[in-house]
């Protein structure tokens, strides 16, 4: 087990810079999830940590040791790949034991270690099988087993669940989290799925275009997004973004409503107001949005309603038993403290 630090990491392919100097400290035993849309640099960062690519600039430190010039095998890491990368010509036992090939252990110790890992993953009965005789979830477990068997300082997961179906993904998510609680190694997990990030991480690193947008616990990035990108990326459905401006110290919304948020800002400053669908509902409070319901999505205990207003569609949550009809004019309101205020130009959070 070890901590991990990335300092001012830059990666360039020829003239294209894909990582623009990112820095991050990961504590020993922490479960950190990198999340972001495709092309944001999260997988590149992981590959740099693994040593599968060379950093153009910056330092990668694992357990207090700068590893930039070390081969992947000398970095004390193990990696689980998106498509498992378990060898089809080897049995599960051989696959799991593959990571020990170069380890200086007696054969009996190796066998015992394989059995131990298989036991943890509940795969003892499957050790003699070939990968073609396993289900997707079992294959992923073999891949995890192969990573575990060496007891590395840091586990790297590169979108390991994206090839699984929804049900299995939920199950594996839970299993990986339990596994982390049990073995306690440092884990860096890359995904594009914000639900995975929220449910598994101790801390989430949200990336976009080669920059880190925000680092924080799931609660922090959800409740205090650093900018409109994070606000829109975390949470499903996405946060609604309304335009507004500052007028006489108050917030003036497109709907004409004036809200006293105690803003100390220049007169006329353009802002973006973010409000999560779960905070927005039909009601009698200050009207944030007024308009007709265009679509209803019943979810049982509640209903998502899409309301057309100010040239965009706003999503709100209504009661599951008596939701408004399609076409009905509604007034949507939210508690003032649930509103997020961003600078309209830069997207940075102001409150």
């Amino acid at each position, binding site marked *: 087990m070890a901590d991990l630090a990335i300092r001012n990491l830059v990666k360039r392919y020829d003239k294209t810079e894909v990582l623009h100097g990112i820095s991050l400290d990961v504590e020993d035993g922490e479960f950190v999830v990198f999340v972001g849309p495709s092309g944001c640099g999260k997988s590149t960062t992981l590959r740099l940590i693994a040593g*599968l690519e060379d950093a153009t600039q910056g330092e990668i430190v694992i357990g207090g040791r700068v590893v930039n010039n070390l081969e992947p*095998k000398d970095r004390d890491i193990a990696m689980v*790949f998106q498509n498992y990368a378990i060898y089809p010509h080897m049995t599960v036992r051989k696959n799991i034991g593959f*990571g020990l090939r170069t*380890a200086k252990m007696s054969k009996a110790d190796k066998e015992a270690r394989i059995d131990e890992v298989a036991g943890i993953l509940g795969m003892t009965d499957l050790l003699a099988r070939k990968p073609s005789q396993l289900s997707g979830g079992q294959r992923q477990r073999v891949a995890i087993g192969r990573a575990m068997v060496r007891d590395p300082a840091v586990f790297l997961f590169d979108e390991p669940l994206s090839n699984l179906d929804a049900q299995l993904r939920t199950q594996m998510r839970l299993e990986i989290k339990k596994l982390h609680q049990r073995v306690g190694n440092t884990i860096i997990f890359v995904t594009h799925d914000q639900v995975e990030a929220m449910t598994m991480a101790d801390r989430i690193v949200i990336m976009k275009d080669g920059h880190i947008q925000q680092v924080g616990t799931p609660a922090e990035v959800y409740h205090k997004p650093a900018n409109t990108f994070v606000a829109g990326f975390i949470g499903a459905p996405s946060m609604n973004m309304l335009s507004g401006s500052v007028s006489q110290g108050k917030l003036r919304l497109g709907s004409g409503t004036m809200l006293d948020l105690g803003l100390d800002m220049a007169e006329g400053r353009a802002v973006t107001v973010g409000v999560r669908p779960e905070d927005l509902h039909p009601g009698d409070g200050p009207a944030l949005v007024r308009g007709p319901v265009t679509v209803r999505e019943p979810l049982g205990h509640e209903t998502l309603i899409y309301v057309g207003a100010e040239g965009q569609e706003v999503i709100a949550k209504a009661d599951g038993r008596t939701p408004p009809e399609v076409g009905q004019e509604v007034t949507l309101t939210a508690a003032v403290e649930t509103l997020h205020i961003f600078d309209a130009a830069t997207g940075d959070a102001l409150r």
Partner: protein
Amino acid sequence: MAVTEIRPTTDALLKTDAPKKPANMGQIIRWTLLFLGGVAMVMPIAYMISTSLKWPHEVYNLKLIPDEPHLENYTYVLEDGRFYWWFLNSMIIAVITTVCNVIFDSLVGYTLCKFRFPGRYIVFIAILSTLMIPTEMLVIPWYLMSQQFGWLDTYWGIMFPGLMTAFGTFLMKQFFETVPDDFIEAARIDGLNELQIWWTVAMPLVKPALAALAIFVFLGNWTAFIWPLIVTNSVEMYTLPVGLSSFGDEADVAWELIMTGAAISTIPTLIVFLIFQRYIIQGVVMAGLKG
């Protein structure tokens, strides 16, 4: 498995659709062409065996069944000590060349496929371009090389032009493209060096291609004629095809003996094919299941 699953549906279709429907024109043409193709393939072999059972005076009679079939030719060829020499020469050359091709072609193919280095593309094109030069044109430079290196009339001289082939390199490179990079990177993280990765991870994944390559190379060298004929001088260094062609005297070619030798010499090729074909079929099946 896929085949057994599909079969019942096809059967069912045939049963319900066309109990006594006459075969259509397209089908008749297809079967006819297949039949003609089959005959064209089988006839030379049939004549080879038939001729090996004939007496010399019957050889130019094109009858497929000899008037007086006999095994004297086989006795003669097998009792002639030279045949064993040639057989051994051919075997040594074909086996060594096959092993070398399997190793070198796949090493180069793997390198060209999985490593990024300056000039990679040029090297690949250069190797491929040698495919366009016919053997007949290369024979003279090869001969001059052999002469200068003192390789004339040696195994080394017979083998060296074929120890690596552009075709094999190309074939292996294309097959290595189907091996996901994740496998290689996973092995790299697991601490294997590049040579170990190639041997323990990549090679087992391209077994079907290796089998195909082994068959091609073995057959090609087993039946090679022009180059061994040119580079060998002594009868003891002849390969089977060269040796067989020398049966008879200057005035007359002993076709019945040549055909007898040829018939015997097909046995190793059949064995090689039988050993490796299951890997090829396996490869096709695997590719199908993945699809």
